[in-house]
């Protein structure tokens, strides 16, 4: 059980990186539908950087840079050129998937044995990790999990208690007012998307070098979309995102645990694999009080 919970926290980590990134970007009014592509490029760049340099830190740096590059293309098209966000996201996701598979081949050729790196090590926090159950689950994780423990509450504080947060939220609710206050709406939105790119890049790299130690083109397999869904289901609030992430992390850990345990005669493996997706559908249907940013998905057009 402790193993399962600990795995849930680990599998939840990248989802929370992605979900918080999405919350902040969507609060400014931009859906980052390129999130799946950003995860993929992060996984790719993280592996390339980590493998070639031998340092995981450089891998994560690469992942951040790659995520920001993809996000800036997305932001440029959606915010400055005011094109359709869903359509642009789909196009960029296909492009990025092709690019990462292609460039992986360019860099590594066709290796006879799969290339691997040593993934992030677990760092038990002294004292805290010896608390029964809670400590073993929460403080026996890798560094990224500890980082998100800090980022998650900070993002909540930033969004609701600072003037920066007010600007971000206003850009998605009433961009004209932000404009009148002399703040450039486009810039606010663009920077939020870049932030999402950096966070999404780290999240993607978590799968390649944080946990599996290798890269394949189907490594993300819809996890970016799960993060996207968590943002919706968490009511565009970091608090909601944390709760959602715990649920999805647990569902995913359960799927991995059940698969590792081997066949179960009563519940098929496929059911466990499908649980996070079924959960999203059920929650999307049952959730009532949506706090959706008014201008979500609508490009801002400044009057001349």
């Amino acid at each position, binding site marked *: 059980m402790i193993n399962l919970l600990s795995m849930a926290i680990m599998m939840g980590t990248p989802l929370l990186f992605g979900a918080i990134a999405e919350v902040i970007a969507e609060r400014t009014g931009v859906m980052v539908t390129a999130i799946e592509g950003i995860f993929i490029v992060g996984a790719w760049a993280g592996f390339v950087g980590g493998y070639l340099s031998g340092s995981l830190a450089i891998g994560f740096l690469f992942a951040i840079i790659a995520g920001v590059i993809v996000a800036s293309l997305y932001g440029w098209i959606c915010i400055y050129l005011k094109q359709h966000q869903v359509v642009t996201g789909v196009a960029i996701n296909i492009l990025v998937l092709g690019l990462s598979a292609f460039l992986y081949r360019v860099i590594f050729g066709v290796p006879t044995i799969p290339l691997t790196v040593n993934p992030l090590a677990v760092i038990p926090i002294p004292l805290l990790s010896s608390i029964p159950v809670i400590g073993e689950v929460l403080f026996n994780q890798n560094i990224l999990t500890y980082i998100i423990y800090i980022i998650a509450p900070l993002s909540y504080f930033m969004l609701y208690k600072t003037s920066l947060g007010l600007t971000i939220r206003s850009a998605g609710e009433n961009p004209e007012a932000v404009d009148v206050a002399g703040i450039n709406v486009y810039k606010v939105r663009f920077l939020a998307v870049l932030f999402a790119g950096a966070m999404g890049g780290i999240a993607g790299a978590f799968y390649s070098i944080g946990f599996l130690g290798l890269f394949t083109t189907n490594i993300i397999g819809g996890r970016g979309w799960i993060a996207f869904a968590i943002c919706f289901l968490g009511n565009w609030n970091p608090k909601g995102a944390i709760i959602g992430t715990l649920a999805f992390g647990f569902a995913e850990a359960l799927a991995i645990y059940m698969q590792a345990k081997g066949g179960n005669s009563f519940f098929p493996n496929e059911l466990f694999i499908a649980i996070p997706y079924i959960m999203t*559908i059920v929650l999307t249907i049952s959730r009532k009080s949506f706090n959706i940013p008014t201008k979500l998905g609508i490009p801002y057009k400044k009057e001349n």
Partner: protein
Amino acid sequence: MNAKLRDLFVTNIMAIVLGFVASGIMILFLNKNPIDAYYVLLTSILRDQYTFADIFVKATPLMFTALAFAFTYKANLYNIGAQGQFYIGAVIAVAGSLFFENILPSWLTLFVVLILTVLGAGIWGSFIGFVKARYNANEFLVSLMSTYVALAIMNYLLRTVLIEGKGEYPQSDPLNSSVWLPKIISGTRLHIGFVLAVLTCIGIWILLYKTPLGYRIRAVGYNAEAARMSGINSKKIYILAFFISGALAGAAGFTEVNGVQHMLVQGFNADIGTAGIGIAILANGNPIGIIFAAILFGALKVGGTIMGQMSNIPTSIIELMQGFVMVFVILAYFLRTWLDNNREKRKLQKAVLK
């Protein structure tokens, strides 16, 4: 030719060319000459009848999945779940064919299977429309997630009920050749499903632009509130639009199973849902345009695969080319709006000067 139509052609052709140029630059990274590579691509798809016909074989399911996206898009709804609806269609097609092939005459089997496939996938799709109408659920998310659920269902069935007689691999038994879709050119893989797909594109165009139902669907897409005021039941439209959309994607399952694969294997055609969206974007959502855009994507797929085998260029080049073309097509949208605005402005200025 009117200026808008001219812009559409010119900008889209530019987008396709730029997409090729950008992919060519990527080919340079492999230390290969992109011009040679494209020469191989072009000559290989024209090298024999079989390969050339394969372009249209590949274009067939893409037309259906592109229509699936374009259809709901006209109602301002997003169906990102065509891949899943396609899987559901494929499962029903293979199960139905295996069940009826020894009971009914072959033409009747095909007919019954087509109806079942379209109905089944349509119902799967209409669930999305239903939760949108009844619970105001976000159809983008629900359709997206429904694909993963459909994939799990297909994998489960292939491992259990539908598994081949030998029980070795998670794949179905091959279909009896009596329930294969008839070929339209012998010596190739081109089957009657292609004709069906083209006719469907034309049919959907007529449905959307020449019938009251199509008018209502577009009205809801243009302004749901205004449509409601004028007495259109937009909730009904949501369900119906998703039913038709799902049925269209499901039909791709029928043509792929009975026309090409003649069996069901795990994870086949895993990219036709997203490619369909790309085609719909390229065609600007127009059903007639989809025919041509799908053929272009089909040619990329066939040519890209052969190019991979002959020049040792990875087949991911296909996705790369598709991705670049799509991004440039979106930029072309921007360019067209800009050109159009400028034209309007000039017209106004002229009018003032007079």
